[in-house]
Structure formats: structure tokens, C-alpha cells
């Protein structure tokens, strides 16, 4: 179902949603960037061009979460407005890990109580490469509804029942000419991205290549790429004052695979960086049929030494 409505009508609807949901959306924090924050007033919500620093995976795979049965789970309904199509598709990939064999009820509960309304990208920068990995700015996977900004009005593509409950009564259905214009705008979006790379089929035969030492030479094992990635899901389980804490962990950390005996199967940056690339572009594909990367470019933007994973796989000596 597709509907069209004026922006003023949308703003009023957001205000009414504030009473029903915990509304979360991109908010500009000074000159530090865009962050997903609780929205208390319409003015806080940023629905312009740009991408958040942290992905919305932190609302499903919570960065610090207690996993005891006695922990009282949050029950309130949440609404995320303004998500990018790339990271919504990332959530679908995470579903394959957490909502499959051994269902993770913490993740699943968070998924069920959240409605995701996306915003089709208004602009893309030089680091975006979703189209090289099967996505694009109009992708609706992972969304309950997808908004298209058309200057004075929004067009919404309603995908699920949850989306219908939010938007079903808003505005009106599109007239024939409005539909044509929307489809024209939609088609233009695919051209927003400048970067195009060929994702490799499989990498197994270059596992032992010196290439991995070269591309990882500058890596500082800092973990930013994994923490900000919409699809990275590695975590640690520790006892925190008698409670079982799940916190983010990173395959880039030097002690990620360090065994108590002192043996470490991935002792240097070469093995660790190779593991990250292989997990995303080989192992996950073997297990689930898709790359574990949506081309959002967050890792590239925030890497302190500008390691660019899109170039790493584009230049891989396959």
C-alpha cells in the first residue's frame, strides 16, 4: 500500500506517536554527528541527508544487556523513524543469527516490540556502496514502512501490518500522476551512489596470501569498525556483580580468541583482519547465502586510519 501526505500532517502524526511509543530517531549532536536518540519533540528529529554514526542494531542487540531470567525486560513499544535502508537490511541479516537455531529471546523481544520506519536516502556520500552488495536507497527489507521525501510531502510505502497501523489512515492513496512522479524519483535514487565495486564470490583460495598482511598493516585493532557495523554481532559474556552481562566484543581485539593457556590462534592483526573480511564475504555467505555487509560505509568513515573495506575486497587478488 502506498500513500501520500503533506509534511505538516506527518509532523502531527509524529506528535501523536510520541504518546504511544518510545520514539527514536536521528538527532544532530553538536558537530559530533547524527545519533539515534529518544525523540521528545518534532524539532529534535532529523530527517535530512546523512547517516548516523551508530547503527540501529544497538536497539536489538543491546550493547550492554543482562541475560538473567530474573532481569525484567523492557516492554514498552518503540518506534524508530528515519532508519537507512542499508541498516534495516542489516537487521534482516542479524535475524539469521539470533532468530534461527537457539532463538535469542532478548533479541527477538526487542524486534517484536519495535516498529521500523525508514527514510529512503536523500543523498549518498563517497563511502556508501550498498548497490554493490544487492541493496539500494529504496530497499524495503527490514522495514515496516519506508518514507520518501518529496520536498513538501512524503510518500510512504507500507510493508507490514505494523506499518499499516501507523500510516493506514494518513493522507491518501496516490493518483496516477503522483505515482508516476514517485516512481521517477525512486528510479533516480539508484544513481545516488558513485562507488561501485565487484564483491568477490569466495575468498577461500587466497586465505594464505600476503595481501592480508599489507591491508591490515595500518590497523590499530581498535574495534570501531565492528562496533559501528550494522551487521557485526560478536559479543562477550561476563559475570558482572552476579549478573550475566552481554557486551559488545570485536574480532579485531587482540584478546578476542586468546585462550587461558596463553595460546592465541589469531595472534597478529593479519589473522584478525582477515577473519573480519572472511566472515563477512565468505563464511556468512557459505552459511546463509548473503554477504554479512550492507555497504553502509560506517566503518570507512570512522576508521582512525582510513582502512577501506570496499577497496580491500575490490583489490583482493582473487
Amino acid at each position: 500500500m502506498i500513500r501520500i501526505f503533506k509534511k505538516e500532517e506527518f509532523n502531527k502524526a509524529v506528535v501523536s506517536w510520541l504518546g504511544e511509543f518510545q520514539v527514536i530517531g536521528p538527532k544532530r549532536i553538536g558537530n559530533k554527528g547524527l545519533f539515534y536518540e529518544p525523540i521528545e519533540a518534532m524539532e529534535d528529529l532529523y530527517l535530512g541527508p546523512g547517516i548516523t554514526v551508530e547503527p540501529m542494531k544497538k536497539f536489538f542487540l543491546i550493547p550492554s544487556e543482562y541475560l538473567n531470567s530474573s532481569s525484567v525486560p523492557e516492554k514498552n513499544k518503540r518506534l524508530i523513524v528515519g532508519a537507512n535502508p542499508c541498516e534495516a537490511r542489516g537487521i534482516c541479516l542479524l535475524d539469521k543469527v539470533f532468530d534461527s537455531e537457539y532463538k535469542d529471546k532478548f533479541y527477538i523481544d526487542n524486534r517484536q516490540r519495535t516498529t521500523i520506519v525508514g527514510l529512503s536516502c536523500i543523498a549518498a556520500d563517497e563511502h556508501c556502496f550498498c548497490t554493490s552488495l544487492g541493496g539500494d536507497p529504496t530497499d524495503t527489507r527490514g522495514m515496516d514502512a519506508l518514507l520518501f521525501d518529496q520536498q513538501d510531502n512524503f510518500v510512504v510505502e507500507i510493508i507490514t501490518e505494523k506499518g499499516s497501523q501507523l500510516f493506514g489512515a494518513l493522507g491518501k492513496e496516490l493518483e496516477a500522476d503522483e505515482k508516476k512522479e514517485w516512481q521517477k524519483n525512486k528510479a533516480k535514487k539508484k544513481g545516488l551512489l558513485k562507488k561501485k565495486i565487484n564483491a568477490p564470490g569466495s575468498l577461500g583460495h587466497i586465505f594464505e596470501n600476503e595481501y592480508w598482511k599489507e591491508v591490515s598493516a595500518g590497523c590499530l585493532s581498535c574495534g570501531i569498525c565492528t562496533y559501528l557495523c550494522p551487521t557485526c554481532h560478536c559479543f562477550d559474556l561476563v559475570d558482572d556483580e552476579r549478573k550475566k552481562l552481554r557486551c559488545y566484543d570485536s574480532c579485531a581485539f587482540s584478546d578476542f580468541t586468546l585462550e587461558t593457556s596463553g595460546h592465541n590462534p589469531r595472534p597478529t592483526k593479519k589473522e584478525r583482519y582477515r577473519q573480519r573480511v572472511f566472515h563477512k564475504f565468505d563464511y556468512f555467505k557459505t552459511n546463509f547465502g548473503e554477504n554479512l555487509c550492507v555497504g553502509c560505509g560506517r566503518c570507512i568513515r570512522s576508521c582512525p586510519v582510513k582502512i577501506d573495506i570496499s577497496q580491500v575486497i575490490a583489490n583482493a587478488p582473487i
Partner: protein
Amino acid sequence: MENIYQPHLAQIVDIQQETLDVKTFKLKFKDPSLQDSFDYKPGQFVEFSVPQEGEATFCISNSPTRKTTIDCSVKKMGKVTQALHELDIGDMVGIRGPYGNGFPLNELKGKNLLFVAGGIGLAPLRSLINYCLDNRADFKAITIVNGARTSKDLVYKTEYEAWKNAKGTQLHLTVDCQENNWTCMVGVVPKILEQIQPACKDSVAIVCGPPIMIKFTLPVLLKLGFCPEAIITTLEMKMKCGLGKCGRCNIGNLYVCKDGPVFSFAQLKRLNYEL
């Protein structure tokens, strides 16, 4: 929905001191119905919680054919194991599991079995050895080679008599260097294999031990004629969730916790095993 991360309470009903730093803990679930319904295959493991310390991974070292208790042998090494060694009979711990694929019992039936163990590597193999002995007719000749640095480091000493006397079963014990009153073999496990020359026809080798032992045992077995598909091992890596979600124990596209810990060497070669 069940909380897959929640351990079940179990009580320590007995503790056996195997060596200076290895203890075997015998556990019983607090909930008796759980104790009855808990079923596992040799080679599977559990995530063991010590209150206020954390979790650690241990294989179940007793055979499912002898499951009055659930046995885990623990070497004192780090935070959780040290705390575990301080516990007494009657103390409560937590158990999650069983996890893992276990040994491929159907592929072992009708074969000669060569068990090769080093130090505490005997723990997962003991489960399988006793399972085979309790189902003796299903398996052909059994040869056990068990080595340790010194005689003080040998585990499950109380089992050796029964294994030596079992039908069609040979036990070879070895230590690295000669000691007083030691009448069995002397030499590292790979050297002992070269001396014994076990036959490879219709045989499967099951190997478990420290990485350095595996590194030198593997070429010896290959030279003896065992093909990589017929050499299986059970691996240990740093594990946390045990469920294939935390992403740390993967070898290639397989997780040691979910798709292992039992692998054949043919599999490991295909998977780019980072030994």
C-alpha cells in the same frame, strides 16, 4: 520463549583430585527431572557457571551409558577454573547444555579405534572409550595411547585397570621422561605411535591433546597410512556462548561450539584451520 543463556542449577556431589591441578567434579541437577531427561552424546560439552566468576566450557567426561552424575574434569588455569577449584562438595554451580556435535558414533561402528590422548585431552575421549566398552560388540579392536608430561599428570588413573582388562583392548601409557618406579613406556606420544605402529586398515584415530601434541601426532598418523577423513579430533577454542552467536570460536564458516567440537582433519584442512 526459553532463555538460552540461563544455566540450570546443579550440585557438586563428589570431587576427585586427578592431578595437582586437575579435579573431576561430579554434578547432579538440582531438579531431579532434569537429571533424568538430560541426554547427551560422547564428545558434547557444557557451559559451566561458577557464581560471581563467569562461565567456562568443559566437555562431559563420563559416558552417557554411565550417567548417574555429570562429570567435568577441570584444570586450574584462569579466573573461573581457579574459583571452581575452591568449591566444595555440596556447593551449587550452573550448567547449560549439552552443546556440540559429539563424536560421529555411526562412522565409528564396526571399526578399529585408536585413541590418542595427551594430558587432560583424555577427558573427552574417556566419555567415548567407556561408551564403546559398554557397547563392545559394535566396535572392533580398541587401542588407547595416553601420555602426559610426568606420571603425576596422568588423569583417570582409576580407569586404567578396567581398560587394560577389557576385551580386545590395549592400553599404552607413556610419560615424557624416565621416572623411578615407572614401568610403562617413555617418550612423547608421537614417538610412541611410531613405536607401536597401529594398523590403519578399517581404523579411525581419535586424537585429543594440547596443540603442540596434535601438530606432531598428525604427520605420524598420516605416515602410518591413516587418511585425513579417518583422523578425528575434538577441538578447544575460547568459547563464550556455546550457541554459535558470539562469533568467536569459528574455524572457517563452522563454529567449534555448534558445528564441532569434533572435526575430522579432512574437514579442518578445508576450513583453513589456524592452528
